[in-house]
């Protein structure tokens, strides 16, 4: 809202300053904003999934991941099952996208999928599911469109102004007379706003983004009834050293942790899409009483010296919600694959989607044949048998 106001104001001032008509600039701003909105609304998710090179999976490709997504869909009370994607990169991150719950997608990197146990995976997916349920994807993409438009307009406006000054065509000077002084004042205000507006827009954008992250963390705790799952997943995430190459400024707020920031800062940072991980972990871990929004808010206040993260309306009338135990204790003998099994589970999906053929040698070795392999036979490196490659 605030950013829309800034956009309208800057459009108005551009109009006054350059077209000697307030409405021309305003209409320009609105047209740009409208077109960008349409693109973000209808193609935002496919663009994001496309540039991340995400592969859509089915239940049989990775039953554990698919089941966890379905579990969290049920816990959040969403009506539709989101599409599930895996991104082939050792970087550790996850994001949700989609303009509404009906067209939503959840994506997770192979690196993260391999590192997390079931409780942690549940926490991460619950966080993403909360973004879908709270419609954060729509909110943040609208905000980023607004932000982008403000920045572009301010940039062009300042260029036009500089060149206008160099070429010496001062309309205000030529017109002279009584209107001159008023126009100079408007000019100065316009320049000041062009500098301040983008900075302001950035700060508002980041503040909204951080607030939605806290809210998604609180929802994740409520869905899973197990804040420790997300907390320990965040801990593993913060130790990752791989950088996600496909992330950029526009998509940063969609991810579970900021994909761009390398160094973790202890203090709250005004120019970050995400709150510091250490702080998020601390809040989740100090939720001693229960797993409801009320408990999260209490934990948040304890960490932030009395400040509150949620409106009073979302806190009243909530029933006490108790935290459950770790899944291994609650559900007897939950199949918990080891780290190597998890890595194999994930890489099998990726092999399949990179169109490698699987040849089972009699000695038990599994051969992965790349799609550009020309011959019809392949020799097993372990036992030396010649295997025929099946035609697909």
């Amino acid at each position, binding site marked *: 809202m605030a950013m829309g106001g800034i956009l309208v104001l800057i459009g108005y001032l551009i109009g006054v300053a350059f077209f000697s008509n307030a409405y021309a600039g305003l209409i320009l701003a609105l047209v740009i904003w409208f077109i960008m909105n349409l693109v973000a609304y209808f193609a935002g998710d496919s663009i994001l999934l496309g540039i991340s090179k995400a592969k859509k999976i089915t239940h049989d490709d990775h039953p554990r991941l698919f089941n966890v997504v379905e*579990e969290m869909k049920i816990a959040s*009370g969403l009506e539709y099952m989101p599409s599930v994607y895996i991104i082939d990169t050792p970087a550790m991150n996850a994001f949700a996208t989609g303009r509404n719950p009906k067209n939503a997608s959840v994506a997770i990197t192979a690196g993260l999928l391999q590192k997390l146990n079931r409780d942690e995976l549940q926490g991460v997916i619950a966080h993403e599911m909360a973004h879908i349920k709270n419609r954060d994807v729509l909110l943040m993409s609208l905000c980023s469109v607004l932000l982008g438009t403000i920045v572009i307009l301010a940039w062009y406006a300042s260029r036009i102004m500089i060149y206008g000054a160099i070429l010496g065509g001062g309309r205000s000077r030529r017109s002279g007379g009584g209107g001159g002084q008023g126009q100079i004042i408007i000019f100065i205000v316009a320049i000041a706003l062009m500098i301040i507006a983008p900075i302001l827009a950035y700060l508002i954008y980041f503040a909204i983004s951080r607030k939605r992250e806290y809210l998604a963390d609180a929802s994740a705790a409520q869905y899973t009834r197990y804040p420790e799952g997300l907390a320990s997943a965040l801990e593993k995430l913060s130790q990752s050293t791989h950088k996600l190459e496909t992330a950029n400024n526009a998509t940063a707020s969609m991810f579970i942790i900021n994909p761009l920031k390398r160094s973790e800062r202890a203090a709250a940072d005004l120019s970050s899409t995400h709150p510091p991980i250490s702080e998020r972990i601390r809040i989740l871990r100090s939720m001693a009483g229960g797993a409801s929004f009320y408990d999260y808010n209490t934990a948040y206040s304890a960490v932030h010296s009395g400040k509150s993260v949620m409106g009073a309306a979302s806190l009243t009338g909530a029933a006490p919600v108790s935290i459950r135990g770790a899944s291994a204790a609650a559900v007897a003998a939950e199949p918990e694959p080891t780290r190597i099994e998890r890595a194999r589970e994930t890489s099998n999906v990726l092999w399949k989607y990179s169109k490698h053929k699987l040849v089972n040698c009699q000695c038990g070795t599994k051969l992965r044949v790349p799609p550009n392999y020309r011959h019809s036979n392949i020799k097993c490196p372990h036992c030396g048998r010649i295997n025929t490659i099946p035609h697909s």
Partner: protein
Amino acid sequence: MAWYFYLIIVLAVVLVLFLLFTYNGLIRVRNQMKNAWAQIDVQLKRRHDLIPNLVETAKGYMTHERETFESITKARNLAQKAVGTGVGAQSKAEGELSSVLSKLLMVVENYPDLKANTNFLALQEELSSTENKIGFSRQFYNDSVMGYNNKIQMFPSNVIAGMFGFKTGEFFEIEVAAERAVPKVSF
């Protein structure tokens, strides 16, 4: 026209609007509750379908657990019969099934051959995920019941609820003996 004539009209409009919104609100939460119950039903049915497969696969390996298998099959049939008999009766039968199932899954550790069977592992993943889904849909259902009951019992919506005969929703509680027992740790 006297001023109190307008006052009466305004009051009547306010009363009708209040009636309308409260009634629709009650219907909305009741439908949400019913929908949440349907979600539980889907998962319970899935569990009933999975159990025969699991028993069939595990039977060949777990030769010493004949009694457990029999009790599982019996509990499953009872639970299947309880479908549609009301929340209370059904949650009792399902609780019975959950506790015998958890007994079986606990002794799986003693059969390394069974744990190497990929078919069984896939079934086990499905079954434990279905258990989780039952848990999460129960959690969502009970939250919906809580919201609905609050509306029915709190003033002023309780007046409307009483007029139209809204009945309080029943919680779905699965009582699993193993869940309440102190976890046994063996080294």
